[in-house]
């Protein structure tokens, strides 16, 4: 699956949408979902939580392993995807769409400037 051009990416394999009214949507990439295998449980931050760029804010469990979820940005969580909590397989079937994880109102400082473009992330992920 190709990485959508309109998103930005972290080296922890999260994607971040272009903020709308200061709020960005966050998920994990298809590459990360494939590496995990079938996701069976997601633990997300709660709406209202403050997250910091690069810090862990949840967990993704698959058949074989558990992985920390990192926030690619700092800010306040405004919404979590209850659909993916109820049906974690959405992370595998639609990582860039219905499998989104949570939304963050970005700190005034905005997104970190070390996030990758789609092409940069594709090169990074396939080089892994």
């Amino acid at each position: 699956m190709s990485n959508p051009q309109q998103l930005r990416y972290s080296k922890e394999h999260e994607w971040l949408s272009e903020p709308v009214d200061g709020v960005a949507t966050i998920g994990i990439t298809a590459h990360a979902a494939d590496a995990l295998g079938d996701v069976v449980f997601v633990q997300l931050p709660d709406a209202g939580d403050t997250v910091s760029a690069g810090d862990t804010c949840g967990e993704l469990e698959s058949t074989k392993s558990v992985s920390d979820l990192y926030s690619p940005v700092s800010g306040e969580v405004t919404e979590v995807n209850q659909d993916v909590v109820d049906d974690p397989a959405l992370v595998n079937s639609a990582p860039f769409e219905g499998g989104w994880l949570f939304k963050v109102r970005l700190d005034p400082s905005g997104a970190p400037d070390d996030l990758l473009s789609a092409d940069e992330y594709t090169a990074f992920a396939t080089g892994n």
Partner: protein
Amino acid sequence: MTEPSAPPRRTALDEVHRSLGATMTDFAGWEMPLRYASEREEHQAVRTRAGLFDLSHMGEFTVSGPAACDLLDYAFIGNLGSLRTGRARYTMLCDERGGILDDLIVYRTAEDRYLVVANAANAGTVLAALRERATGFDAQVADDRDTYALLAVQGPAAAGILARLTDAELEGLRYYAGLPGTVAGAEALIARTGYTGEDGFELFLAPADAPAVWQALLDAGAGDGLTPCGLSCRDTLRLEAGMPLYGHELSTALTPFDAGLGRTVKFEKPGNEGAFVGREALQEAAARAESAPPRVLVGLVAQGRRVPRAGYAVVSSDGTVLGEVTSGAPSPTLGKPIAMAYVDAGHAVPGTEGVAVDIRGSREPYNVVALPFYKRER
């Protein structure tokens, strides 16, 4: 043991796996398919239809000669002399202290000939032990790891699929039995064994024949939904079936009695005046298990959704450590996380309340259940 620097070994089906888009993993020095697509769908295919596995990493050794039977009775804890030709038995290799070096399946292929199938990770240990223990016996130990590829067809549709490709009488082939035959024209040892909790077959055949037989099976099973399956679902299948895995439920630190498998130790063997490696230590272990029950291998079923992993502590509601998880995974059949764990005897009775698993600092409630988690309907 494989040297850490050695390049991974590839099975005769390596190109087939790659062309199917398998995610490969290093397993005991072999590059093996972990999954082809969704491991949960592969798991369900084996439970409801049939799955096809490449298990060529398993280690095969042939023990033959007039004293082959005596050698195996001396080297292993079981009574292999009582095994009839054409039948198979689960047994173990132990060290002098009674510690488990490997668990294996032994097929008696002729009066004076046995095929020993060892775990890939322990194959070197098993071969070295067999050769060392063979001293003084009129028997030969042959390393046949490169002689065989091993395919497994597992699931309720397995017998019907295989029947289309073989001249062998599958109806008369009982569980834990094996006979020579042809599969899609290739010579094979056809065994009704497996590690999934389903009916199924394991096919030992020449590596050169493996790709054609694999394809013939997929073609013959297409209408039944036969699905290529990787090692990931093999692990959840055997866990649901309550089958131990060496390195998890079994180790050199445990005797068969500690693992709840004391029934596999046969002290009354006709050969060698009953002598076998580990006998004295195992007699002590048996007595110990009577007087002071060790931790008991139990099943745990989650009340919540977080998955226990090997090494996590089993705790009481006040945090007292009661035991340790040896294997854990989300169970596709139960729809909940499950685990096997060694737990203090006082908390091992099915239905025991107040048992939790410490999952990265959080105490998650679990129900103690009898193994296995899953048993097929016969």
